[in-house]
């Protein structure tokens, strides 16, 4: 990272800043940061290899402190509980596939989920665990089959990181020609921009930039650009870019959020 594209004092530019970044990495590993600093550091860990390296070094340095802890046997049934949780997540995710032999129950299920989710998303109840769970299920659920592109069709993507809480809901409306992005709590460093990309999903075309997320608005509207949004593997990815967006038209920063693009049931 260089200081050219960032305001002074927000990014490491010299030995002092390097020291500052190292101290931040150390405190992140200690766990002493405040909640908001911790969230920022978490995002940085996922997006900044330099910072990730410093964090890994601190983990190695401090790891011997864990050796002094006496092992304590967890309850005998804990592994069964972990397996049960994995099964539950698996079942929710696999439900539409299991039902794929009879297409209509699968569609119904998807439709119900979507309706439930849309109502909730519109109410901006983004922190509800139930919502997060149903969104995760929605994202993980492969569609029974590719849907034909239809005039006036709308497409949706819910983008998140590591299957965690949804960060942004992306809606592509072919008829109105508007891509709407509803920010449900995406983390956006002040000195960078989040850029939105359409991915064909099979590498048949380079990522297509749809624009940059507005800095401080809950909703961003961008023009629809020509792409095959109905592709089975189509996805939306959000990358961390220099302020204002990628300088060269291709993604230059890491993907911080991503999600599958699916046709919205009508």
């Amino acid at each position, binding site marked *: 990272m260089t200081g050219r594209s960032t305001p002074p004092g927000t990014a490491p530019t010299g030995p002092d800043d390097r020291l500052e970044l190292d*101290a931040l990495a150390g*405190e992140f590993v*200690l766990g002493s940061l405040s909640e908001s600093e911790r969230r920022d550091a978490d995002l940085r860990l996922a997006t900044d290899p330099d910072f990730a390296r410093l964090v890994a070094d601190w983990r190695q*340095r401090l790891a011997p402190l864990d050796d002094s802890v006496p092992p304590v046997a967890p*309850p005998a049934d804990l592994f069964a509980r972990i397996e049960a949780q994995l099964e539950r997540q698996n079942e929710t995710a696999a439900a539409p596939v299991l039902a794929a032999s009879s297409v209509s129950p699968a569609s119904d299920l998807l439709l119900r989920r979507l309706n439930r989710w849309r109502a909730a998303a519109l109410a901006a109840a983004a922190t509800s665990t139930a919502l997060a769970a149903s969104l995760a299920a929605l994202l993980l659920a492969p569609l029974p089959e590719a849907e034909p592109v239809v005039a006036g069709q709308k497409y949706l993507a819910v983008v998140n990181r590591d299957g965690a809480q949804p960060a942004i809901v992306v809606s592509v409306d072919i008829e109105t020609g508007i891509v709407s992005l509803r920010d449900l709590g995406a983390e956006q460093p002040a000195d960078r921009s989040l850029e939105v990309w359409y991915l064909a999903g099979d590498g048949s075309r380079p990522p297509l930039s749809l624009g940059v997320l507005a800095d401080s608005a809950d909703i961003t509207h961008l023009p629809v650009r020509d792409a095959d949004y109905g592709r089975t593997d189509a996805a939306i990815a959000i990358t961390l870019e220099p302020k204002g967006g990628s300088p060269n038209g291709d993604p230059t920063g890491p993907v911080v959020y991503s999600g599958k693009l699916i046709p919205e049931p009508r």
Partner: protein
Amino acid sequence: MPDVADTLAAEMAFDLAPLISATARGDRSAFRAIYDATSAKLFGVVLRICRDRDKAQEVLQEAYVKVWQNAARYDPASGRPITWLAAIARNAAIDQIRRGRAQSLEVVQEEGELEAIADPAAGLMGHADRSTLRVCLGELEDIQRDCVVLAYCEGYSREELAVRYDRPEATIKTWLRRGLMRLKDCMDRE
């Protein structure tokens, strides 16, 4: 009968890295083997931070679910498998206590225990007796060492340390960072 020494021996006896790769491919038995080899150690780590058995169980469950989900992200170049596993468990534990402590800033005061932890001579380091880390912690000023150890081992936030030592958070931050940097300098030298 498995005891502490056996658990540690088992942990050292086989390499966890291939098990993590197998877990990333969806191998449930490899995942079970990781759990069997590491859950007692990680439960100890999590208990020390959470101080509540029920919450610690939830945290441990959450941690292993993350291990299953993120196994493909483990990079051997970034450290030993056990360090990666412990980082996941510590993260989950710290997230948990920050959620729980956010409302009421209730710091548990158990002087005897804390003194023991803060004093490297009191057997705190246990298995790491001859480690560079122990030597270098010994070189820190007492207050810096106490803050570093309390934060890492017991999950103290700056805010909680500020209450404990009756100093502004900015002072705690300075102590922590000076402590960390001296620690690093010393460990690089050793």
